[in-house]
C-alpha cells in the first residue's frame, strides 16, 4: 500500500504538525519507504496469537484512595505546574482565543 501527498497532509493534520508542500513531497517518499519495509510483517502467520499487552508479567496496582497520597504528585502544586508554561496568567494556562 502506498500513500500519496494528500494522505501525508492528512496524517500531518491528525498529528498536529504543520508541513509545507515541499516537506509533504519529501515525506511521501520516506514514509512509503518505511511502510513498504514494515509490510513484511504481513507474511507472519499469527493465527491464534494474542497481541502483546505487557512485556513483563506484572500486576496493576491501585494506590490507596486518599488525597495527596504522594506529596510530590498530589494536589496543591499549582505554581510548580505552571512554572514552565509559556503563557500562564491568573493561575491558569493561557491559550489563544477559541472561536468555533
Amino acid at each position, binding site marked *: 500500500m502506498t500513500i500519496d501527498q494528500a494522505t501525508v497532509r492528512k*496524517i500531518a493534520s491528525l498529528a498536529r*504538525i504543520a508541513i509545507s508542500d515541499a516537506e509533504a513531497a519529501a515525506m511521501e517518499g520516506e*514514509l512509503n519507504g518505511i511502510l513498504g519495509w514494515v509490510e513484511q510483517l504481513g507474511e507472519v502467520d499469527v493465527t491464534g496469537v494474542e497481541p502483546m499487552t505487557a512485556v513483563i508479567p506484572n500486576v*496493576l496496582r491501585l494506590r490507596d484512595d486518599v488525597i495527596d497520597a504522594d506529596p510530590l504528585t498530589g494536589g496543591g502544586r499549582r505554581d*510548580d*505546574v505552571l512554572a*514552565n508554561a509559556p503563557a500562564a496568567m491568573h493561575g491558569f494556562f493561557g491559550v*489563544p482565543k477559541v472561536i468555533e
Partner: protein
Amino acid sequence: MTELTNLTVAQIRDGHRAGDFSAVEVAEAFSANVADAKALNAFIVETPEHALSAAKAADADRAAGTLKPLSGVPIGMKDLFCTHGVQTTAASHMLEGFVPRYESTVSQKLWDAGAGMLGKLNLDQFAMGSSNETSYFGNVISPWKRKDGGNAALAPGGSSGGSSTAIAARLCPAATGTDTGGSIRQPAAFTGISGIKPTYGRCSRWGIVAFASSLDQAGPMARDVRDCAIMLENMAGFDPKDATSLDMAVPNWEAALSSDLKGKTVGIPKEYRLEGIDPDIDAMWDAGIAMLKDAGATVVEISLPHTKYALPAYYIIAPAEASSNLARYDGVRYGLRDLPEGAGLQDMYASTRADGFGAEVKRRIMIGTYVLSAGFYDAYYTQAQKVRTLIARDFEQAFTSCEVILAPTAPSAAFGLGEKMADPLAMYLNDVFAVPASLAGLPAMSVPAALNREGLPLGLQIIGKAFDEQGVLDAGLAIEERAGFTARAEKWW
C-alpha cells in the same frame, strides 16, 4: 598517583573510602576534563557546581563515617532524565529552556547514594536515533578515529551518544543511559565501553522524558562490568509512581559477580549470522564464544525464528507509542510555543510542533499516527503486537536450553557522521541485533570485545532471562577478563 580521571567507579569509591584522595579532587579533575572537551559536544549543560557540592558532602560523610554507596563519584546524566532546577531538553528545541520542578526517580536515587552530577548529556532528539545526529544541540563526536590516516568524525552511537562519548573520553566515570531499541548497548559498543539495559521495569520511568513507554528502560553505562553493576544497584528499585515498575528487591549484583561459568549454557542464535556481515564482527563473535567456553560454559546453537521481523515490528510499535506520548507537546503547558499572528488554538498546536520537533521525530510521529489511524490499526499495530508476542516466545523457548545468549551488539563498528543520515532505513538497520531483546523486555548488555581492522571498538552483547541481570553481568565479566580490552581513544580534542 594515577590520574584520577582514569579511575573506574569502583576505584574512586574505594580510593575515596581509603583516604587516597578527596572527592573534591575527583570532581574537580572530571569537571576540568568536561570543560576541556567542548569539541566533543557531549554535554548540553555542564553542572560542575552540582558535582562539587556532592563531593564536599562526600568528604564530610567520610569524616563523619557516614559514607554512601556512591560517595565521591561524579557521573553524567543523560538529558532525558528530569533534574530539579536544571534544564532538561531531550535534545529538542521543543523543551529548550524547560527547567523541571521535580527530579526523576532514577536520578534522585543516584543523588541519594552520594553521586554528583557533572552535567546533562547530549543525545538523539527524544532518544530517536542511532548516531546522535538528530540532537537539536548538534552532533556528539566520538573520541575514536579510524586508523586509516583520515580524520573523519565518527558517530558515538545513539541515542545515548553523549553518555558513551563522555565515558570513553574520560569526562565522567559512568553515566545514565536509556534504551528503547538499543540506545545503551549500541553506543557502548561504538565507543569501547560497557552498558546494561536491565529487565523492563527494573528502573523507574518516572521523570524520564517518554519515547515508547512499553520499551523505554534506563540503565547505566560505564567502563567495565563491575561499574555497571554498582550503578545499576543504585538506579533500580520499585517506584509506586511508575505503573510498570517491578515490585522486587534489588539484588547485590556487584557482590555476587562471578566470571566462573561452569554449569552454564550459552545460546548462539543462528538467525543472527547475517549474510554479508563484516567479517570482523563474525570473528569477534567466534572469539567471544571461545572466551565463554574458556570460562567453563557449554555453548549450544539456538533458534530465534522471528528475528528478521523484530525490526519492522519495532518500527511500528515504537513510533505508535511515540506519536501518543509526544502528543503532550502542545505549546500550552510547558516547552515551546509558536503562536503566529492571529492564529487560533489548532494553528498554534501545528505551528509549535512543526517548529519544536526535528525531522526524525516528525517522521516517527507521522508513522505512528498513520499506523494507529482508523482502517490501518489492525493491519499494522495489532499485527506488530502479535509479532512481538512471537518474538518474546522465541526467547522463552530458547531459554529452555540456555541461560544467556551471546551475539554481536551491532552489525558494524562506528560509522562516520553523515554516512547514514540520508537513508532512515539504513540507520534503523543498525539496531538489528539490539531490538529483539527490547521487544521482549529482557536484560541485555554490551561489553567491548575487540578492535576491528580500522582500530575501532566492537561490542559483544549478552541477553539474559527476565530478572537475571546477574547472569548477564557474569557472562559480561567473563568476556571482559578474557578480551583484555584496554584500548582507548587518543586525545585529539
